[in-house]
């Protein structure tokens, strides 16, 4: 993985010093809160409901054991013993004192981490496929591109005060695990006539106005990526709307100008400035490329070639069940990709205790070439685990309460922090996730239902990606009372689709029965067990769900309540 060079180290240390000095000026009354707020946000510091929150960047979701242990240490020293992994592959600490932030940033810098640009109206942490470097269907490791973009976007003077935040995701595989269609810029690594380049998608996003991104460039040569993005950001910075926060994302500019006009504007700037771009020095490109080579596999791995996981499965039903859901095929047949679920039914989705972080760190170091990933689905990945070690990894995870066998299933729920923590939220999402997971796993419906993505957001900003959930739940505030809207049929992959609303929302009490009705409708209506929830929805549409959710006798009551 990428290791900091002298420059990276100096840069991060300097940013820590600058932030300490800014806090001091704020305390001395030199900076007003209005001036200070954007500065703290660009260092990942929010003021939430109960305390400050620090969002730490995990670039493209990749970290090593030493970094994971540092996160555990931070959780214990300065927080309440846990951290929350987010849908942008970052980690958040919920109980931070402003006075401690400088020390925490210093501790992060010690392990080549930072919180720079994890908030604010700037280019945010660049995300990537969490199976990068291990996936079978990959053209190129997207993290090379993501690391280049991390460097390019860090501290970019021109783009620190954009109209709104700017999110970039990169995938190098045919199957889109990085939700690229719903980013300000989605980058797909493609091959055309034997040459690797980029397909650029622009103006996707969730939030108040969910939009599937539009193709901006069908094939962009790799060498043009930075000057081209520079042109995109330049045009956005100048012409993006600043009069209304909800219309300030680039997706609205795409809609208002039209893709043709916007493309012409971008191309004009790109053409005018490309010559002034000297190109990324080969040494820098080389260093990035070298950082993302597959791990060196020890010679005894040759023996593992013949390792048959069916042998392990036969010995333990629990292990067999876990392997069925939490293992993914690796491009190297001797290895498997392990997903560690942070979704134990009843627990807070995405939370890990300091102790659990250390268990994961130890496993990564001992069995998995010291590589860890965080997925946007709020789980942890060990991307390269020799098959011979799978059983040992499972046993260690099980002992730490980390062996939930539910990846991609009902209880593997994405949920934002919601109104239990977030200052923007309009309703709680964590208790809803807890209740759904507990209720339906107790009913033993999960295995029968199979592949299902439930995603919950506690406000219209959609951090919980509810628009792309097979079942999406959006919590709203109806005169001081929580109310939940349900959407069906969303999909964040290459078959991108936005969920459609079932109809009027539900109270917190009525929500779980409504989810049960939806699941029953599917279970009774599906052709067979191979027809997934999403496939069923695509075949039958909304009508049967609507009929079941809003029977004629109840309809009047529902509508008046909404």
């Amino acid at each position: 993985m990428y290791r900091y060079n002298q420059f990276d180290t100096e840069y991060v240390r300097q940013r820590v010093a600058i932030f300490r000095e800014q806090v001091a000026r704020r305390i001395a009354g030199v900076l007003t809160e209005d001036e200070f707020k954007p500065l703290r946000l660009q260092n990942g510091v929010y003021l939430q409901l109960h305390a400050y929150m620090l969002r730490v960047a995990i670039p493209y979701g990749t970290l090593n054991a030493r970094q994971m242990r540092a996160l555990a240490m931070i959780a214990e020293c300065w927080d309440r013993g846990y951290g929350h992994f987010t849908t942008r592959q970052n980690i958040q600490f919920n109980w931070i004192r402003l006075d401690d932030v400088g020390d925490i940033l210093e501790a992060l810098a010690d392990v080549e981490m930072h919180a720079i640009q994890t908030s604010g109206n700037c280019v945010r942490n660049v995300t990537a496929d969490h199976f990068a470097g291990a996936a079978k269907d990959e053209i190129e490791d997207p993290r090379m591109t993501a690391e280049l973009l991390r460097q390019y976007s860090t501290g970019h003077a021109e783009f620190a005060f954009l109209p709104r935040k700017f999110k970039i995701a990169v995938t190098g595989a045919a199957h889109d695990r990085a939700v690229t269609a719903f980013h300000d810029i989605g980058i797909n690594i493609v091959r055309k006539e034997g040459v690797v380049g980029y397909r650029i998608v622009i103006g996707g996003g969730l939030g108040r106005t969910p939009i599937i991104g539009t193709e901006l460039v069908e094939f962009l040569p790799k060498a043009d990526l930075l000057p081209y993005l520079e042109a995109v950001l330049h045009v956005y910075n100048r012409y993006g709307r600043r009069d209304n926060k909800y219309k300030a994302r680039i997706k609205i500019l795409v809609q208002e100008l039209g893709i043709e006009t916007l493309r012409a504007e971008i191309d004009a700037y790109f053409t005018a400035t490309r010559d002034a771009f000297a190109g990324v020095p080969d040494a820098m490109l080389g260093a990035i490329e070298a950082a993302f080579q597959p791990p060196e596999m020890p010679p005894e791995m040759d023996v593992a070639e013949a390792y048959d996981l069916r042998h392990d499965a036969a010995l333990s039903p629990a292990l067999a069940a876990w392997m069925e859901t939490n293992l993914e095929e690796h491009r190297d047949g001797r290895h498997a990709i392990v997903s560690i679920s942070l979704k134990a039914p009843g627990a807070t989705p995405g939370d890990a205790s300091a102790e659990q972080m250390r268990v994961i760190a130890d496993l990564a170091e001992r069995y998995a070439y010291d590589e860890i990933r965080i997925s946007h689905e709020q789980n942890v990945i060990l991307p390269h685990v020799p098959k011979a070690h799978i059983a040992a990894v499972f046993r260690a995870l099980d002992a730490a309460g980390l062996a939930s066998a539910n990846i991609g299933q009902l209880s593997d729920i994405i949920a934002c922090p919601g109104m239990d923590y977030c200052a923007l939220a309009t309703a709680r999402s964590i208790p809803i996730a807890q209740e759904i997971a507990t209720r339906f796993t107790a009913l033993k419906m999960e295995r029968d239902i199979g592949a299902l993505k439930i995603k919950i957001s506690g406000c219209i900003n959609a951090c919980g990606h509810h628009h792309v959930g097979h079942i999406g739940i959006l919590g709203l505030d109806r005169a001081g009372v929580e109310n939940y809207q349900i959407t069906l049929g969303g999909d964040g992959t290459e078959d991108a689709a936005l969920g459609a609303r079932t109809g009027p929302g539900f109270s917190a009490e009525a929500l779980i029965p409504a989810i049960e009705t939806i699941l029953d409708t599917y279970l009774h209506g599906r052709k067979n067990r191979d027809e997934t929830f999403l496939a069923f929805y695509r075949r039958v549409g909304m009508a049967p769900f609507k009929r079941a959710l809003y029977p004629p006798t109840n309809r009047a009551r529902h509508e008046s309540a909404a």
Partner: protein
Amino acid sequence: MIDSNSARIVVDAAGFHLDDWHKRARFTPEDLAGLDAKTGASGVLVLDAAQRVEDLTPWLNVLTAVEIGFDNAGDGRGFSLARALRGLGYARDIRASGGIHVDQFRHALQCGIDAVILTREAASRMPEQHWVNAATTTALNYQARLGFASASWRSREDLNL
């Protein structure tokens, strides 16, 4: 006429100065069409952050002083405007005024803005040393490392950082 006691302060990478532009004529892009070259060269073109600078190309070799107004500290359009002007070849002075503060000085310098015009109040709240310190942080620059160093990053070269 502004007397020197009430004149604004100008801060560049070297520190505070009195505003030496305050006696120059000020004009906007609408005035350009009727402007002779002499006035163009001796006056200050005042730009709003929403200006399309590409339309100014014919005058860029005449002008000697451009002031970009920042609406508020959260509005970064002025940074792109300065970059665009530098990209179009404008090589003389650019100053920023309005809602821009010391923590944005690095951004201003790196985008090709030479100096920031301050009110007396702002200058007393944000002392000279803070601005000079901020100017030194331009040295660590990812974009320059990645091949973006160019004429548009002029102030960096001038400072020999």
